[in-house]
């Protein structure tokens, strides 16, 4: 499990390698929030290399989305495979987030 991130101006891109689950969601949340404190406003999370997400991971995304909006920013999610899309649909989180096929898609008009 690892997070790799890239910061360009107010754009933060993070890739989640492995799972986003109860064991690492705190670390993940903190990483993003620190960047938001330091001016990141457009946040793009790439799930291309993500295995699965549990309810804690989904919760972390919900809470990050809220915090980023409070700072006048926007959160976009990209690269979810079919399994992950199923999770977002089951929990109706596909109504809360726009799911982009790829990071490139998500960057358009961002």
């Amino acid at each position: 499990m690892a997070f790799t991130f890239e910061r360009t101006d107010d754009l933060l891109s993070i890739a989640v390698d492995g799972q986003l689950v109860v064991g690492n969601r705190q670390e993940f949340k903190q990483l993003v929030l620190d960047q938001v404190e330091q001016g990141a406003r457009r946040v793009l999370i790439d799930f291309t290399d993500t295995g699965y997400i549990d309810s804690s991971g989904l919760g972390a995304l919900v809470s990050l989305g809220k915090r980023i909006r409070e700072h006048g920013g926007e959160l976009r999610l990209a690269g979810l495979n079919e399994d992950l899309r199923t999770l977002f649909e089951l929990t109706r989180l596909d109504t809360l987030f726009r799911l982009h096929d790829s990071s490139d898609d998500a960057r358009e008009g961002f």
Partner: protein
Amino acid sequence: MTPAKVSRGAGDSGTSVLEWQIASKVDEIDAIVAAVCAACAVAGFPDKVCRLNVPVSLTEALANAIEQGNGNDPTRVVRVLARIDLVGLCVEVTDEGAGFDTQAVRARCHEQSWVDREDGRGVFLMHALMDNVETWCDVGHTVRLTLRWP
């Protein structure tokens, strides 16, 4: 951590049983989940089941047992018993807590505000991803997840 106990009946009709006891630390979750998923893959469950249904629902059950049932107290134990047989997969997760009102928890996910909440999706996901979820209290509190062969 390897299974504390492993047994398998003879021949093709064999039942496989894996058993663990872990301290109540979320760091212990991944190894158990990986093991049960690998077992399901080798037993012949479809890829999607091994990559989504089993790992997510088992992670939920273990996280709840560790955090809610045992209050993250590392001296308290969570027991896991996974069984693969002709019917399918059955996993029991037992904590040392007193359980909870499952009906009340499930009712919550129909509330308008549910989608915006940070927590409260674990029990829902277990039900959504497994054929059957049962809970009871005996010596501690047990959640049993069942998934039949497709």
